[in-house]
């Protein structure tokens, strides 16, 4: 039974302390993040919003271990990302992290079902378990009936749902999404953000989503507003726009 009340902010699964990041272009170094601390909780959808170029994506990539910060620490599921070598980080991502990107990044040659199966094959799972998880996550994103189609035959919203199913099938504790709706029309974007919200509730997943789309704010449990590499505002919504969960009984 999915929990519908947001848990108390005691279950921080993602903690960043005093992280800093700057990029050098030529002789100029531009600081993007400076002395930023934040902790993100499980079981809710946290949205990072802010103007373009303020460092949202950079923060997401540091929190997810795709980039290393110049200073500071990131603890993900109580493990320090900085002390891992790249192999360990890959293994950590394989077991614990899902990603959804703005571009759907689906292989043109694979059907929706195969896209979802592919990463599961690298986990030590029986083929029955792979089949079960594939079917369940396709079902969960509501695309089971189109499982045999290739990306060229799917709409943008459907493609993003396949990408979510691909991330979801690994049953990750952490799910990162960078502008998951910005390539989609309003209605499809709505479906996607609802889906992410529902995943956070139903699986207790830590969902961290970056978007500059103000329409998504009402769907998030917590909104972090960024500007110039700093978090200006951290607001928690106790009654966010409920995900339209067909299966949730409320």
């Amino acid at each position, binding site marked *: 039974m999915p929990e519908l009340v947001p848990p108390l902010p005691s279950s921080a699964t993602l903690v960043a302390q005093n992280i800093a990041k700057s990029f050098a272009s030529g002789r100029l170094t531009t600081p993007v993040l400076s002395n930023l601390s934040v902790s993100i909780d499980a079981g809710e959808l946290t949205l990072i919003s802010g103007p373009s170029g303020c460092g949202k*994506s950079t923060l997401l990539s540091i929190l997810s271990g795709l980039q290393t910060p110049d200073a500071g620490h990131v603890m993900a599921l109580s493990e320090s990302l900085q002390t891992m070598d790249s192999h360990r980080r890959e293994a950590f*991502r394989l077991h614990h992290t899902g990603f959804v990107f703005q571009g759907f990044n689906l292989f*043109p040659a694979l059907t929706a079902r195969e896209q979802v199966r*592919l990463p599961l094959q690298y986990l030590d799972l029986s083929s029955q378990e792979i089949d079960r998880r594939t079917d369940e996550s396709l079902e969960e994103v509501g695309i089971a009936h189109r499982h045999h189609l290739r990306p060229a035959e799917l709409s943008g919203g459907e493609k993003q749902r396949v990408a979510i199913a691909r991330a979801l099938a690994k049953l990750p504790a952490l799910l990162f999404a960078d502008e998951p709706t910005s390539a989609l029309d309003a209605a499809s974007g709505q479906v996607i953000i609802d889906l992410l919200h529902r995943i956070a509730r139903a699986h207790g997943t830590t969902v961290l989503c970056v978007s500059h789309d103000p329409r998504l704010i009402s769907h998030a449990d917590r909104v972090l507003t960024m500007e110039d590499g700093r978090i200006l505002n951290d607001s928690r919504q106790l009654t966010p726009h409920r995900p339209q969960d067909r299966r949730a009984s409320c």
Partner: protein
Amino acid sequence: MVSLARKTLIHEWRRFLPATLAVGFSTLLQLLQAALVLGIFGGAAVYINDSSADIWIGYPGTQAIDLGRAIDGDVASLLDMNHEVTRVEPFYLLDGDWRGGHGTGGVSVYISGISTQPGGMMFARVLTPVLRAKLTYPESVIVDPADLTKLGVKVGGTAAINGHLVRVVATAPGLRALGGVDILASLQTARLLDSSAGEAGGPTYLVARLRHPANAGRVVADLNGHTGFGRYHAWTAPQFARRSVLFWLFNTGAGAGVLFLAVVVFAVGAIITSQALVAAVAASVNEYATLNALGVGRRQLRWVVLEQAFWVGACGVILASVLAGLLIWLAQSENVPVAVSVPVLSACLVLVMVLVGISGLMAMRTLRRADPATLLR
């Protein structure tokens, strides 16, 4: 199991078609080249391959069969003492100047003086017992039917070799060697025709048959370990055949040409294949980066590229093998000298797969661009 490599190959076959064809054609060229070279230069070993001897004994350092020098006949007694040896035959290989009729002028020929005993080893695969017996008559010779016009004689006709009269008593197909005409005669006739008779007098080679041909290597080593029986060296028949073929291959410049062509063909094949693989990886670089973000290791991603290379190679090789088989069959039926040797052809195929592997390794470098951090912008 979803094989990303195979699915992509099938779905985007147009992208991989040039690479497959490039691999196919370089394989086909290599295979045909190998078959032709084996066919043409195999002639250098015609005496060895047409005979049933297991061991050849000749002058030390003889590089090819046609370059033999007379050896001391004493070594025959060493062979007689060896329990493995069941039969020994001398073989004379001499140069001759043939004068036929009909204004053909002089033709250089090789004269083979062979045993006419029933069951003789020399040219056992070409001569029937009846033909061999015909050589017993003094001054009788046998030639390849294809050489008759060149020699200006007919069966039953006469000609002169080194000033001695000979009579063509029969023809036997399959005697043609590299760049020369081969004439078969008995040992006695050959010695009679020898223009340098008296110089050494011994046979050019001794050939021997063994009780157990599989032991040839050991017997040869044993024979070469003795001293005091004159200057000689023993080879197994395959060793000596290979020695002759290789000598011709590399001393006529043909070998260098063959190698040069092989390198060019392989280089072109490798470049086209790696380019196709690079393009395929580059087209999906974001998808590979996404897989990496989801935790699929770089090593596994490299395997996908290598698997793709393997399938491109496999398709090309199968295509080429079928075509080569057809063309070699066609060539054989048209009397073009082609020969098939399983080790050589397999070596060609292995080489092609190595080439394909190298292309795959080159294409792997494109995966470095698959950095998941670039997906977050």
